């Protein structure tokens, strides 16, 4: 098997595992379908925006939960935004943590919120690493002269 085919197979296997393990959902596929020759870096651009947005939100959340008098409405507003952006790019596990996080906000449950924040950070780092690895594989395929397989 030549280098390109090997890389393509790796790409397909890796992508499939991300869906199977729940890191990504159908929305990510939708994003990939939107990409075309007029906008060949669309997915990378959107995901990069997500990374920037997420890091800001996680910092804001950390600060908000360290306050003397916690403003749960503000915390909820940040989580709502995080839930929205993760949902928009198909980052399913991050989104799921946000759903639980919002419930704790409603209950003004500090321990619950702190736990969820940690989980959100963990899941964010995981998906960021995995997507970066995925984009890396894509680059390798393209540089080897191949084309990136379309995932159905």
């Amino acid at each position: 098997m030549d280098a390109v085919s090997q890389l393509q197979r790796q790409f397909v296997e890796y992508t499939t595992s991300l869906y199977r393990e729940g890191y990504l959902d159908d929305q990510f596929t939708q994003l990939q379908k939107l990409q075309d020759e007029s906008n060949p870096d669309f997915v990378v651009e959107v995901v990069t925006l997500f990374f920037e947005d997420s890091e800001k939100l996680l910092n804001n959340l950390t600060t908000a939960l360290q306050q003397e008098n916690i403003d749960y409405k503000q915390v909820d507003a940040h989580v709502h935004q995080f839930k929205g952006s993760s949902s928009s790019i198909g980052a399913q596990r991050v989104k799921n943590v946000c759903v639980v996080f919002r419930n704790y906000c409603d209950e003004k449950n500090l321990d619950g919120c702190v736990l969820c924040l940690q989980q959100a950070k963990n899941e964010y780092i995981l998906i960021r690493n995995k997507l970066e690895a995925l984009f890396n594989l894509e680059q390798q395929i393209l540089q080897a002269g191949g084309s990136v397989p379309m995932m159905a």
Partner: protein
Amino acid sequence: MDSTSSSTVGMKEVKEEERPHVLVVDDSLIDRKIMEKLFTNSACKVTTAESGQKALELLGQGDNKHTNINNHQGPKINLVVTDYCMPGMTGYDLLKKVKESSDISEIPVIVVSSENVPTRIEKCLEEGAQEFILKPLKQSDVKKLRCHMQFTRALKGRLCLGR
């Protein structure tokens, strides 16, 4: 007469001025970017706004008439797609303002939301929203919306069917 549209490129070439013009309103940059692509992929022209206030200005309802892109000389907005949850003016507030206005009330407004709240949906539909769609939007959702845009454009200046 129209020299720009002719031969060359693709089979599905739509003239610049015939593409429906959509105004996408959302406070999330990520969602604005995604929705913009969804609509341009459906042969629409897109303008985005990050708030209801900005959207109203673009629709000619603000104090600054220079930002009005919805005047009769320039491109006309055929559809407004707004997020429901936005800080300050919500999508519902924007919807109300559009429907209560004297000059832009016939522009169809679609409300999108990540939350499936029946009372919220009812409220928007009662206020005159054409549709309420759950986020995140897919290409198939956008394809279905094109009928709203064509219908409005085709109707103008032809038949008077009454609402």
